[in-house]
């Protein structure tokens, strides 16, 4: 067993520096690497390029990095729900690249899987395709999109072990598996780090080979963005 376990978040994010490119798993506030984000806020590294489907809310998630003006550029598919983001974008302080959600997922998976680029129909004929190579296959037009390149990938899983194996829960899975192994260093934080051998090899979502560092995170807030319920009749 190759040991990926590190003592804590401080050790897990060793090597992060100003002007690096990071990937973050999560959809909205679900499945975001809360501990890594908190530590990046503490370290106050600046000039970051962040690849993440969303940009958090004003006081949580990547919104915390935005508050400290640590982010230079965001690559996302949807960035509503964040006033500070909007302010920085409209004032020109923050560079923003909006890309289709499926393209974002696939650019991560392409990096993970060793594909330099791929063709997708998403965005053809829109401003997303401007300046990009297009090509016809079987009578339909496609846009060439490239794999992401990033220094660190920050992942949140439900359970994991010291070998780096990961299991996700519910829709907190989202972009997390696709971003594993897509950056130079993949840092996974888990709610529960279980003894090696406890996870059923049949049920592992991401094998440890895609993960360089793993630790058990502390105090997950797991904030709910839209609490929708029905009444018991």
């Amino acid at each position: 067993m190759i040991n990926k376990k590190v003592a804590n978040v401080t050790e897990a994010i060793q090597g992060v520096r100003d002007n690096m490119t990071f990937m973050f798993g999560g959809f909205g506030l679900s499945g975001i690497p809360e501990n890594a984000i908190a530590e990046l806020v503490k370290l106050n590294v600046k000039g970051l390029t962040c690849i993440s489907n969303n940009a958090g809310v004003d006081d949580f998630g990547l919104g915390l990095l935005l508050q400290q003006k640590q982010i230079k550029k965001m690559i996302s598919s949807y960035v509503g729900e964040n006033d500070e983001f909007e302010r920085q974008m409209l004032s020109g302080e923050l560079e923003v690249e909006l890309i289709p959600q499926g393209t974002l997922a696939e650019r991560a998976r392409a990096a993970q899987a060793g594909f330099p680029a791929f063709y997708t129909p998403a965005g053809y004929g829109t401003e997303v395709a401007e300046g990009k190579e297009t090509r016809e296959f079987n009578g339909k037009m496609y846009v060439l999109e490239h794999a992401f390149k990033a220094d660190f990938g920050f992942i949140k899983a439900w359970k994991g072990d010291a070998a780096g194996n990961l299991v996700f829960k519910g829709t907190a899975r989202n972009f997390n598996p696709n971003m594993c192994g897509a950056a130079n260093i993949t840092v996974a934080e888990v709610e529960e780090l279980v003894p090696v051998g406890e996870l059923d090899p049949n049920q592992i979502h991401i094998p440890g080979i895609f993960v360089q560092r793993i630790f058990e995170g502390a105090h997950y807030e797991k904030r709910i963005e839209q609490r929708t319920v029905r009444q018991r009749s």
Partner: protein
Amino acid sequence: MLDKNGIAKRIAKEVKDGYYVNLGIGIPTLVANFVRDDIEVEFQSENGVLGMGPFPFEGDEDADVINAGKQTITTLPGASFFDSATSFSMIRGQHVDLTILGAMEVAENGDIANWKIPGKMVKGMGGAMDLVASAENIIVAMMHTNRAGDSKLLKSCTLPLTGVGCVKKIVTNLAVIEVTAEGFKLLERAPGVSVEEIQKATEGHLIIEGEIPEMAI
């Protein structure tokens, strides 16, 4: 004239037995409430769930089980969770049978704009561009006119496009319209709405052939 629930109710009739359906945010979400219960349908949410159920009972909310609108949801027996790339494989690979989404503008050639108002609203496209570029069967659910009273069914879109030539059908508070090679073809009128009213609220070319029936809801 229909309200939002009326639009959703009419669209629900387009949902057939055995369909996998992706519902957008807003009016499309309401469609799930009106699907006949004698057919089997599974709802997909692009953040990674197939077999979505209703909202949870109070106290049962789970931060790890949400839909693409970030709302807490439940799952039904037979449901599955998956990663984002798999989710968009379902969408791009045309495994999802029907996509229902909202729009700011639709053009008579099927172009759709629903993600950006330059200088005003730039929230992003989310999964909309993947959905409209891939789905064979796209229904747009929207009001016929915007808040200013201007038509949302245009000769050509004025806002940045989400996709080109992709919309097949539009259900509004006034009408059911099919997008054809010749333009918007009027299929049905909302209860109490005249063909003249629909014509007046439609900027793009409206094709009116024969007697236009009133929607049966």
